[in-house]
């Protein structure tokens, strides 16, 4: 089958020169000491598999983990991107990560269209399989938080036949509340060819990782070109990565770090199954360009217009040595400053207070003084955040409206579908664009509240995708993903660079009933019913009228026989009292008789209340 790759702006390509039919494995660690004292470590483990998983039935798994392979095959997955993240990547302080991921869990996948199953069905199965595989609560992904984005996401691997991918075959969901811990790390580590027994993965010390300021576990599966630029065949690439941001300046007061100090252990050697095992230390930051020493000295230092990187070949460096402990030391005192914010970053928050309505505001900063930036903004909100599209405003700093070039809005459906808003607009050079939209907070049914409803409801990060015009402003971290250092970058300098940034997740307070209230309400209502209902019902539904009292035989007799007259008088008194008792009917028949009082009534017939209806 002839495969032609189209290189979309989102497409990443790789060339390693391993043309063999076997699987091969590369492990890399990229470390970036930042000018503000943070140290970013990015572990990347890539497995390339030539065995065509999708075609033959009796596949042979070599290095490619069977657990992942089976999931991909049985659910017709073309591409898979999963991330489990703790903490928020602070773009304004840390620049851009190698691979962006939002706090919590995020999953997006492209599917092959098959007549056998619908994509939604495949998605539901995939989600549950991955949930089991990584011990994560991915099974909470369902129709109420899954969206089909049209503008923000493109396949990141090779696309078949030069045709545009069908945008309906992608599914995206994020769970901002998901917590990440060792229970996710362990199954993730098991997928690695050397597990955590040898190689760079031995550095993954859970105690250190989970004390960091940010860490993310990712799994990406995508088809990539076997050779570039002549893309005649594809291989399946599985990339597992862990990003951690430490702040060694806090405890030590200075940024003298080493593998020992960061991970509590030195590196013993490389994974014997890896064809490449490298550690790259980014030394391109201007502030650290001079006064530092790296011990032991690196195997080689490469520098291009993206930056300067010191590389260690782990296999070579650990030969004849018991361990490798890279130490980064300052030769003079360094003052840590504020990092310059990158070209594009954003700040999102909930505007307004109270439990009735509110708004989401996102300020998007373009710090490039000469170039405008086109961005795609995607907001996915659960159905109980009832968005009003007509309240949407996109404004510049001085209050002029920005007209979106493209707008796609999928309104939510109660208990069925989330709101999806995708916008494409241009950020003028050196500007702050404020996006804002208003919403109403829905009042849920009382069984729909989670047990910890009082914390609030998490709203996932907004996704901002952009093509940055110049790559000069990039931190070198980006290049690792593009080119897997040190081989040449797929993008020539000056061309556009695709980045995706995730804003802050939000915590929204919804109107809550007092959950001890049902008990109070039941007690109160029962009491009120028991005491008051019968009589009030009686009062309000009974209609009272005067009616002629039927003369009984006994009364006739009494009237006729004179000596019973005394008794008759008494009798009439009784009947008068009876009348008074029934006088409660006065309201019902407010006639003149009533107003004239008792006198008027005695001469009339005896009133008797009769229930009508």
């Amino acid at each position, binding site marked *: 089958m002839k495969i032609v790759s189209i290189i979309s702006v989102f497409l990443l390509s790789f060339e390693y020169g391993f043309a063999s039919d076997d699987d091969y494995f590369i492990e890399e660690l990229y470390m970036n000491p930042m000018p503000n*004292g943070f140290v970013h470590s990015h572990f990347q483990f890539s497995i390339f598999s030539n065995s065509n998983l999708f075609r033959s039935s009796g596949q042979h798994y070599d290095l490619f983990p069977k657990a992942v392979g089976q999931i991909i095959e049985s659910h017709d997955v073309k591409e898979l991107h999963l991330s489990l*993240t*703790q*903490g*928020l990547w*602070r773009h304004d*302080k840390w620049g851009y990560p190698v691979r962006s991921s939002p*706090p*919590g869990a995020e999953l997006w996948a492209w599917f092959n269209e098959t007549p056998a199953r619908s994509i939604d069905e495949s998605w539901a199965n995939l989600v549950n399989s991955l949930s089991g595989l990584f011990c994560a609560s991915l099974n909470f992904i369902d129709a109420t938080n899954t969206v089909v984005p049209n503008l923000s996401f493109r396949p990141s691997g090779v696309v078949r036949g030069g045709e545009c991918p069908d945008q309906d075959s992608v599914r995206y969901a994020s769970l*901002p509340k998901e917590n990440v811990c060792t229970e996710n790390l362990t199954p993730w580590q098991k997928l690695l060819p050397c597990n955590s027994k040898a190689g760079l993965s031995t550095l993954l010390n859970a105690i250190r990782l989970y*004390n*960091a*300021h*940010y860490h993310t576990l990712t799994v990406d599966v995508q088809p990539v070109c076997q050779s570039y630029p002549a893309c005649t065949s594809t291989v399946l690439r599985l990339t597992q990565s862990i990003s951690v941001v430490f*702040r060694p*300046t*806090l*405890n030590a007061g200075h940024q003298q770090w080493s593998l020992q100090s960061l991970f509590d252990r030195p590196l013993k050697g490389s994974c014997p199954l890896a064809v490449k095992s490298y550690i790259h230390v980014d030394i391109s930051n201007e502030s650290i360009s001079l006064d530092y020493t790296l011990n032991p000295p690196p195997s080689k230092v490469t520098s291009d217009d993206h930056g300067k990187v010191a590389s260690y070949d782990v296999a070579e460096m650990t030969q004849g040595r018991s361990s490798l402990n890279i130490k980064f030391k300052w030769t003079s005192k360094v003052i840590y400053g*504020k990092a310059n914010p990158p070209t594009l970053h954003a*700040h999102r*928050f*909930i*505007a*307004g*207070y*109270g439990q009735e309505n509110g708004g989401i*505001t996102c*300020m998007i900063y373009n710090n490039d003084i000469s170039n405008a930036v086109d961005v795609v903004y995607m907001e996915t909100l659960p159905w109980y955040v009832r968005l009003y599209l007509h309240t949407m405003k996109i404004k510049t700093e001085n209050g002029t409206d920005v007209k979106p070039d493209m707008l796609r809005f999928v309104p939510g459906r109660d208990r069925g579908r989330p709101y999806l808003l995708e916008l494409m607009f241009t950020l003028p050079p050196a500007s*702050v664009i*404020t996006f804002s939209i208003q919403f109403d907070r829905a009042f849920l049914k009382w069984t729909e509240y989670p047990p*910890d*409803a*009082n*914390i*609030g409801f*998490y709203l996932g990060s907004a996704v901002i995708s952009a093509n940055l015009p110049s790559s000069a402003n990039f931190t070198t971290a980006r290049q690792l993903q593009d080119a897997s250092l040190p081989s040449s970058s797929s993008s020539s300098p000056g061309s556009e660079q695709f980045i995706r940034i995730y804003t*802050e*997740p*939000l*915590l929204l*307070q919804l109107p809550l009933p007092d959950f001890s209230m049902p008990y109070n309400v039941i007690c109160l209502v029962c009491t009120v019913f028991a005491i*008051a209902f019968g*009589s*009030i019902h*009686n*009062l309000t539904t009974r209609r009272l009228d005067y009616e002629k009292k039927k003369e009984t035989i006994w009364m006739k007799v009494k009237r006729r026989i004179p000596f019973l007259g005394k008794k008759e008088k008494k009798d009439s008194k009784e009947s008068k009292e009876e009348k*008074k*008792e029934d*006088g*409660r009917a*006065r309201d019902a028949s407010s006639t003149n008789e009533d*107003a*004239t009082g008792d006198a008027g009534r005695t001469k009339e017939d005896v009133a008797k209340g009769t229930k009508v209806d």
Partner: protein
Amino acid sequence: MGLMTNPKAQKIIEKVVLSTYKPLSVLLYIGTFVAIVIVSSSLFSAKTYISENALLPGLVEKQYKSTSDINGYANYLEGISKTDDDIPMAWLQQTFEEIGLDTYSQNFSASHPFLNSPEDVRGTNVFAILRAPRIAGTEAVVFSIPYRGKALEKKMGSTNHGIALMMSLAKHFIQQSYLSKDIISDSRQREYRGSSLGEAYYDTSSDFLAKSPLHGRSGTIMAAINLELPGRRIDHFDLRLEGLNGQLPNLDLFNVAVKLCEKEGVKATFHGQGSLTHTELRDNYGIRYTSKTMLSNMLRQASGKPHGIHGLFLRYGIPALTLHGIPSNSKKGDQSHSIGYILEGIFRSVNNLLERFHQSFFFYVLPETKKYVSIGLYMIPMGMLLVIPTIQALALWFLLGRKSKNIDKDEPIGEEPKGQHHYVIPVLIGVHVCGLLLYLSPEFFVVNFSSYFGLPPTEALVDWVRSCLYWYNLITSYK
């Protein structure tokens, strides 16, 4: 419900009400006051307790220690505030950034709704956010301290030591990995007249307040602590709860503060009243002290004025309180450590919260620091008070019935009394004129008389309302 319709029973009620409503009203008035006093006594009020399990105040080991930093910061601030009125913004920002916090500032100018005077209130607020490593910036606790400067310090006392302690605590907290809520340090200029953090944070717009956009925020604010620390040594902490319009924070927050103060041996009081001592208790169950505290608490709530800038947070549904340090007479010793422990403890307790404060009471009055009177109890005197208008109304109704009966006897039935509507017209006009005057008078009063009485415009309005109430009371009482 025979009672409602039975004319016999009605007669009896009518008789009883008409014969007793006057003395009964007086009796109930007095009774209400007596009931409030009784309810406040230790016989009736219940002991406070921590309702939210997650708080666990004082359970963790105290770790804070950096007294030397405090002195440096405090000395610098004292030097500045002796000469200057303005907030030392550059220094604050630089110090917070050195500690490692994300620092933002916001300028504001507040104008008066009625006066177009050039003396608009201007100021700057400095926010510094300590980003907690365990969370993606979704939850936060506020540590706010008013910055007063030269002029206000003389009036309201210094807060410089508080700011120094805030910095020192931030230095401590940033090294801890347990933080699961961002800590927003907030130094505020022009406490009541300027922009509140809520206005900046929630981006609410007001015609009378212009503010620059804020470029950084944290998540939902779970609680706010306002500290007013006059110096190295304090006699005791006065805890202040009452917010705008009498709103109160969750009782749990108060309990945590009291408990931690007690643990560190710093006396905590509420309206000047600490926990009752044995001698105080022996004196008629301490009724003299508790009733005074409770009544001043209620009075403060009734005034609607916040008792510290924490009161402005309550408006946004954020539980908040002020720890107001009462300066000590003796100048020996340094309590910075124990005060630091108290605040460390409060922040760690709040940090433990898994949900917002919701377990404990929102409606309560306090007779002392360790007792509370819940809504169930103080509603009894409240109900007694409400009985008075009810029986008065009932009595009027019955009297009306009697009158109409008398009229019925004199006048022939069935004839409409004519020409009786004309007397309503002047009342109607009078009421409308009064309404119009009431509507226009605040502005009129403030514009014309605020300078005459030498009052600042914001005070003038409050004084106008007060004087109105005073005259109203005077007039109605002589009627």
